[in-house]
């Protein structure tokens, strides 16, 4: 290599380094000043494991916590929003009774997203299925497509919403896995409120997470697994 070549190479290296040193703190400061936070990561898949053996009949703690957190009225009429319901099931032949919470199952292949004509229904990178109410036109196709009856339509004007949970007339809504809490590093309100720890929340993709370990070690099912939606909410002892 000629001397000129190596000098040139040295010069380029130094100037690139100097430029990086000059620019990097500016970029860092800019990002900090803007308060930019991490976007939802596709490496994560949020999910829940519900232990039906621990879920007590007549206990409504998860439903109440959800209503409080998201500002729902708590009424159960046909035009009231219900993001999570307690259901009681009974096997007719054996007489075995079970009680379990039912909500949006946060499918990997959500039918609600498939049918949405405006792209308002969407799945976030971390597997949470949400409604972008800015785009929702209230057509309710998603409510018809959902096999779990998980979505509700807001029929009446609302006031005094929780600042973290905007909700409004003319749009469809459902369990958001308390996305505003997850983004703050908290767990969903229902999982936190359950006294029997029947709702286990965590990252299904992280092999070391409590939920992934438990799913590996105990038998769990997805409701309507025949539809192959690969739900994020799993049930144990069903």
């Amino acid at each position: 290599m000629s001397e000129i070549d190596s000098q040139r190479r040295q010069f380029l290296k130094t100037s690139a380094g100097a430029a990086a040193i000059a620019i990097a703190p500016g970029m860092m400061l800019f990002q900090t000043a803007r308060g930019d936070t991490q976007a939802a990561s596709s490496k994560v898949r949020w999910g829940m494991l519900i232990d039906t053996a621990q879920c007590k009949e007549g206990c409504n703690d998860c439903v109440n916590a959800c209503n409080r957190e998201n500002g729902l009225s708590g009424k159960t009429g046909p035009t009231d929003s219900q993001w999570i319901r307690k259901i009681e099931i009974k096997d007719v032949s054996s007489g075995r009774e079970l009680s379990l919470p039912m909500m949006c199952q946060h499918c990997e292949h959500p039918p609600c997203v498939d049918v949405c004509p405006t792209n308002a229904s969407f799945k976030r990178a971390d597997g949470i299925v949400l409604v972008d109410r800015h785009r929702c036109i209230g057509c309710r196709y998603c409510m018809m497509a959902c096999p779990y009856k998980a979505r509700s339509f807001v029929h009446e004007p609302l006031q005094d919403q929780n600042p973290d949970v905007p909700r409004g007339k003319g749009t469809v809504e459902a369990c958001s896995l308390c996305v505003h809490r997850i983004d703050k590093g908290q767990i969903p309100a229902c999982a936190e409120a359950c006294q029997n720890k029947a709702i286990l929340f965590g990252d299904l993709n992280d092999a070391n997470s409590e939920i992934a370990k438990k799913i590996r070690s105990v038998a769990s099912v997805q409701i309507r697994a025949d539809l192959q939606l690969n739900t994020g909410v799993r049930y144990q002892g069903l």
Partner: protein
Amino acid sequence: MKLLASLLLCLCIPAVWAAEANAPKLDIGKGGQCVKDTQWMRKNHMHLLRHQRDEAVRKGKRSEQDSLKNCVECHASLKDDSVIAREDSFCAGCHRYAAVKTDCFECHASKRKPALAKKDVK
């Protein structure tokens, strides 16, 4: 030429003055500047809000500074904790003057959080 310029100036000053005099007097709450200067924000706040809403809802990038919640937190009136309740409320006052309808607060809370919390306790 000089005459023309001075005439133009004489005409312009009262026009600017009149516009200022008619502008709505807003209850700016706690106020302060955390994003950009007042003039810039008057002109461009809607672009920031629209950009932030898509980033936050669809990607989960929640920038505290540009969020509508954060705007309300500082700019809600200290009297009634709201940005739309009265004629001179921070959002409603200007939007009424400019005849631009906002539909943000059909879904988003128009009151700051501590006010809502207090109401729940009662």
